[in-house]
């Protein structure tokens, strides 16, 4: 065949390693990313004119970040690089993109989607107040802009990222009032056998917690969030939680970073009608892939946190494996058997560690069922838990897309990214059915809001 047209969505760890594998074999892929620069969220590069060194920006991951950026810089002239470009829709062999208000259709023979993830959020009364940010946002403001999200910051939620970002804030000189983890510390002991799959990562995690305590940060585990306090005009002024014994604790602050692990950005896979499977351990729907990254749709490959939430190292391995698989399937080059075996083994190890993290820092799904009726579930359109429950109990909406149609939960600006998981939990509990029966909010094009004029211009060409 002639030069194969392979498109990659995303220039984070998975996308860059996929592109590298293709370039090594003489293929020139088109690489699309919404960001201004490569690196994705985890290895996000600071803007021109910023001077902090790698060690300061990425801590223990500095070498990996630098290696990935160097690889990209070397690839730069051997790929077709489309920065600030949103892949907003997908048809068979045609990727619809828009950049700066101008739409374009990119034809492809094979597509490797490395679309990454966002924070996974559990609502709490007051999370719609100004000053409450996702945990990822707290990290981005520091890494990419050298800013703290407030003068006095509380970190709340669960997962290793909670401790990582809090310690980065402390190191940068920010005032961290508390780290409030919904997971009880005993769970970490039980998860140790699985976490030991990656001793280095485990050790780094333990060091982070120790450094926070040394810095005098109030670290609490096993908490139940009660409320983010404040006023509609001023925003956040404090946080209240209950400890394991039921005692209440209050912290004054003007900012909260809230996060419970990650959720995959899987809209393109959904639009392509890839099969999804329910991942019981994380209680979320993920696209189904085989061990080498093939989706259920021919010619479409998925890698990284957009399909399997195993972090940056796992994403690098998965991106490379998906690209090698893609090349073999297109008949361009047979994969090196030994390398494939090695990459699969690396991913197995990541998967074991992921299971350990889920055991140590579980998504507190029962909290969704316990939310007061007045709690805002959908931040975008201010839809409450009570309105959602009414859609279930009085209108019979036991499926999440039906509930969305009836009460607009998941219909707003973020298209259900930040309320969808909790909303499904609330529906499941109200209807008395297992979560997997509630389904998932369907991904639709456009993947993100865009102006009609962009499409009109594109259509006229």
């Amino acid at each position, binding site marked *: 065949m002639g030069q194969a047209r392979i498109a990659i969505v995303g220039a984070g760890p998975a996308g860059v390693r996929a592109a590298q594998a293709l370039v090594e074999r003489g293929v020139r892929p088109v690489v699309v990313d919404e960001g201004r620069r490569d690196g994705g969220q985890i290895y996000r590069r600071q803007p021109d004119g910023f001077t902090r060194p790698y060690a300061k920006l990425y801590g223990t991951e500095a070498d990996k970040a630098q290696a990935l950026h160097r690889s990209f810089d070397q690839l730069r002239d051997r790929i077709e690089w489309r920065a600030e470009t949103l892949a907003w829709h997908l048809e068979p062999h045609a990727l619809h993109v828009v950049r700066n208000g101008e739409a374009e259709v990119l034809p492809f023979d094979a597509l490797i989607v490395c679309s990454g993830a966002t924070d996974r959020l559990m609502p709490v009364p007051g999370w*719609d107040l100004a000053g409450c940010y996702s945990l990822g946002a707290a990290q981005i403001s520091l890494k990419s802009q*050298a800013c703290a*999200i407030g003068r006095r910051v509380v970190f709340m939620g669960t997962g290793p990222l909670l401790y990582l970002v809090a310690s980065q804030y402390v190191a*940068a000189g920010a005032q961290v009032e508390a780290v409030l983890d919904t997971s009880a510390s005993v769970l970490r002991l039980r998860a140790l056998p699985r976490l030991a799959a990656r001793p280095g990562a485990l050790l780094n995690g333990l060091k982070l917690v120790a450094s926070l305590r040394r810095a005098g940060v109030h670290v609490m585990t096993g908490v139940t969030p009660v409320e983010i306090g404040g006023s509609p005009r001023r925003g956040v002024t404090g946080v209240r939680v209950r400890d394991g014994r039921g005692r209440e604790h209050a912290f*004054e602050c003007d900012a909260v970073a809230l996060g419970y692990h990650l959720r995959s950005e899987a809209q393109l896979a959904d639009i392509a009608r890839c099969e999804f499977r329910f991942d019981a351990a994380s209680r979320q729907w993920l696209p189904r892939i085989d061990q080498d990254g093939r989706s259920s749709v021919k010619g479409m490959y998925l890698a990284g946190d957009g399909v399997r939430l195993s972090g940056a190292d796992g994403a690098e391995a998965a991106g490379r494996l998906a690209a090698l698989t893609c090349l073999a399937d297109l008949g361009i080059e047979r994969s090196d058997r030994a390398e494939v075996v090695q990459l699969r083994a690396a991913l197995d190890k990541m998967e074991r560690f992921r299971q350990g993290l889920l055991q140590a820092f579980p998504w507190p799904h029962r909290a969704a069922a316990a939310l007061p009726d007045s709690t805002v579930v959908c931040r975008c359109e*201010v839809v409450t838990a009570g309105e959602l429950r009414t859609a279930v109990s009085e209108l019979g909406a036991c499926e999440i897309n039906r509930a969305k149609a009836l009460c607009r939960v998941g219909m707003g600006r973020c298209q259900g990214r930040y309320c969808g998981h909790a909303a499904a939990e609330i529906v499941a509990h109200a209807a008395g059915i297992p979560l997997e029966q509630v389904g998932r909010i369907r991904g639709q094009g456009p993947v993100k809001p865009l102006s009609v004029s962009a499409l009109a211009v594109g259509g006229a060409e």
Partner: protein
Amino acid sequence: MDSKNPPERRFVRLGETERRAIQVWIDGRPAHALEGDTLLVALLSSRGHLRHSEFSDGVRSGFCLMGACQDCWVRDEQGQRLRSCSTPARDGMRILTSAQEVEWARLA
């Protein structure tokens, strides 16, 4: 702590302050910012919020900072919608934080 009035600024700069100073105009008033700031950071370094919610009486200040939530939309004086977390601030930029849909809802 005054619990009613909005804070003077939301974000706190922790470094990288040697960059060239620029000026942006927010609802007709000048504000200091730095070259390399996103529009969101430029705005929240001078005030506590980005916009009013069109569904409640609250103000909003962005949420995800990675282009996923669309909470941080503002407009330029030509009415062009800008996602402030992914839009670089430029010297002389003129921004409106009261969105048309909110104004229309109030007129109705």
